[in-house]
C-alpha cells in the first residue's frame, strides 16, 4: 500500500528521518555489531588487550554444562509461564465475555497488573512466600510442607513462575477477550440450534476460531518470559539457589557483570539474537495469515 498524494521536497524527508536514524545507529546498530564482533574476541584479565580468537568463545560456551542447564531452565520456565497464564487468562476471558452487568468492572480489575513492573511483582510474591515472614509461607509450614524458595531450586522456580504468570494474565486476558468478542454470534447461535451445549460450543467452535489469537499470544508470551522476566528473577532469586533459576538472559547479565567474561557474554548475546529473530520471523509469518480464518 502506497500513498499517491505526496510532497516533492528532496531534502526535507532526510531531515525528518535524521533524529530516529541517528539514535538507532548509535544506540542500536553500533552496540549490536559490537556484540557480534566482541564474541570473536578474548580480553585479557585486565581488559587492556583483546585478541581475535575466532569461534573459541562459542566453543567454550557450548562446552559449558551450565549453559545447557540455563537452556533447560529457560525452556521449563517459559513453557510453565506460557501454559499457565494462557489457560488461566482464557478461563477468565470466556467468563467475562458472557453478558454480565459487571463485566466492565471485572475487565479493569483484571488488566491493571500489566502496569506493575516485573521487579515489583517479584518483590510482592517474595514477600508473600518468604520462608520466615511470608503470609502464605506460614500456613504451608503448619501443613507440614517444608517450603523454602531461598534454598530449594524447585521452590524458587515455582515462586518466579507464579509471579510471572500473575503479571502476564492481564495481557493475555485482554487479547483473548478481544478475540472472543470478534467471533460472530451467528456461528454460536447456529451451534446452539443444532443442540450443542456451552461446553461443546466452546471446544468445537470458539476454541478453533480463537486459535490465531492463541498462537500469537504463545509467541508473545515466550518473548515475554525470555526478556521481561529479568526483573522478577533478579528481585526474587538472583538466579539462585545454585543457578536453578538462571535463564539464558540472566546468564548474559551474570557472566558479563559478575564473571567479567565479556567475550562469553557477547557470544551468548549473539545466540539469543538468533533465537529472537527466529521467534519474530515465526510471528510475522503467522500475522500475515491471521486473516485467513
Amino acid at each position, binding site marked *: 500500500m502506497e500513498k499517491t498524494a505526496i510532497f516533492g521536497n528532496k531534502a526535507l524527508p532526510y531531515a525528518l528521518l535524521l533524529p530516529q536514524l541517528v539514535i538507532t545507529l548509535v544506540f542500536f546498530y553500533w552496540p549490536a555489531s559490537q556484540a557480534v564482533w566482541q564474541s570473536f574476541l578474548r580480553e585479557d584479565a585486565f581488559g587492556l588487550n583483546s585478541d581475535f580468537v575466532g569461534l573459541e568463545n562459542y566453543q567454550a560456551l557450548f562446552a559449558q554444562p551450565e549453559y545447557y542447564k540455563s537452556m533447560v531452565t529457560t525452556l521449563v520456565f517459559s513453557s510453565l509461564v506460557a501454559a499457565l497464564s494462557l489457560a488461566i487468562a482464557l478461563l477468565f476471558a470466556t467468563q467475562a465475555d458472557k453478558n454480565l452487568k459487571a463485566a466492565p468492572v471485572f475487565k479493569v480489575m483484571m488488566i491493571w497488573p500489566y502496569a506493575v513492573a516485573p521487579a515489583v511483582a517479584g518483590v510482592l510474591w517474595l514477600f508473600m512466600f518468604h520462608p520466615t515472614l511470608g503470609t502464605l509461607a506460614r500456613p504451608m509450614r503448619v501443613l507440614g510442607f517444608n517450603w523454602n524458595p531461598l534454598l530449594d531450586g524447585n521452590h524458587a522456580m515455582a515462586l518466579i513462575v507464579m509471579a510471572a504468570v500473575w503479571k502476564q494474565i492481564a495481557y493475555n486476558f485482554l487479547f483473548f477477550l478481544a478475540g472472543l468478542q470478534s467471533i460472530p454470534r451467528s456461528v454460536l447461535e447456529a451451534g*446452539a440450534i443444532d443442540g450443542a451445549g456451552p461446553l461443546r460450543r466452546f471446544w468445537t467452535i470458539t476454541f478453533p476460531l480463537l486459535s490465531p489469537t492463541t498462537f500469537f499470544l504463545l509467541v*508473545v508470551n515466550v518473548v515475554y518470559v525470555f526478556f521481561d522476566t529479568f526483573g522478577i528473577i533478579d528481585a526474587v532469586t538472583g538466579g539462585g539457589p545454585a543457578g536453578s533459576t538462571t535463564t539464558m538472559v540472566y546468564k548474559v547479565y551474570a557472566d558479563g557483570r559478575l564473571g567479567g567474561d565479556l567475550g562469553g557474554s557477547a557470544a551468548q548475546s549473539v545466540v539469543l539474537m538468533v533465537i529472537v529473530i527466529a521467534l519474530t520471523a515465526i510471528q510475522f509469518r503467522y500475522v500475515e495469515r491471521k486473516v485467513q480464518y
Partner: protein
Amino acid sequence: MVEHRRWNDIVAYLILTLGVLLVVFPVYVALIASTHDAATVVNGNMPMTPGSHTWDNYYRAIFVGGSRASREPVGHMLINSFVMAMGIALGKILISILSAYAVVYFRFPFRQTAFWIIFITLMLPVEVRIYPTYKVIADLKMLDSYAGLILPLIASATGTLLFRQFFMTIPDELLEASRIDGAGPYRFFKDTLLPLSVTTMAALFVIQFIYGWNQYLWPLLITTQDSMQTIVTGIKKMLTTTDELAEWQLAMATAILAMLPPVAVVIFMQRLFVRGLVETEK
C-alpha cells in the same frame, strides 16, 4: 446472547470474583504490610487488617530512608522515574511521528532502506545487547545521566510503525485539499496531521510511559550514583541486606509507590491503554 441460563451467570461471577481476588491479593498484602511497624511485619504473623503506622512508613520511605543501613529515601527516585518515563514516551512520539511522516508522505532515494533500518530494531530488545550498549553510553560520557537512561530505549520501531499505519488510513483527498489551499509540508503536518493524530499519540504515550517507568535492567546497569536511581531499581536495593536487617514495611511502601503511577494510568486511561496495546502489537 444464544441462551440465558441463570446458573451460567452464577458460575461466571464466581470464577471472575475468584480471579479478581487472585489478582488483587498480593497487592493487598503489600498494602497491609506498609501500614505496620517493622516488628509486626517481621515476626511472620502479620494481621490481615491495616495497622497504625501508615503515615510513619510512607513519610520515612519518601523523605528519610531506612534507618539500619544507609538507605536512600525514595522521593528523588520517584522524580527520576517520572523524568525517565516522560522522556521515553515523549521522545519516542517525537522521533517516530517525524520519521513516519517522511516515509509515508515523501518519495526519496533510500526510502525503503531507511524504513528497514528502523524496522529491524523490533527484533532485538535491549536485554540482548546490554554490555555493548553500556559501553557506548560510557564512551559518550552518559552514565548517570537522564540522556543515558532515555536515549537507548527510544531506539525502536514500534512508534514509527504505529504512526505509519495510522497515516495510511488518512484519505489522500485531505492532502490534495491542503495543497490547493496552498499548504506546504509544514502547514499540512501542523494543521492537518497533528490534530488527527492526537488519539494515536495519546495511546502510544500511555504504553511508553508504562514501559519507561517499569524499566529495571537498564537503569540498574548505567546508574552508579544513588541520586540517579529509579524507584523500581531502588526497591531491590532495600532488600539486599540480610533478611533480618531488611525493612520490609518500607520496601512494601516503596512497592506501592512504584506501582501507583503506571497502574493509575491504566485505570484512568483504559481506552487509550487498550488501543495502544493492541495496535503496537500488530
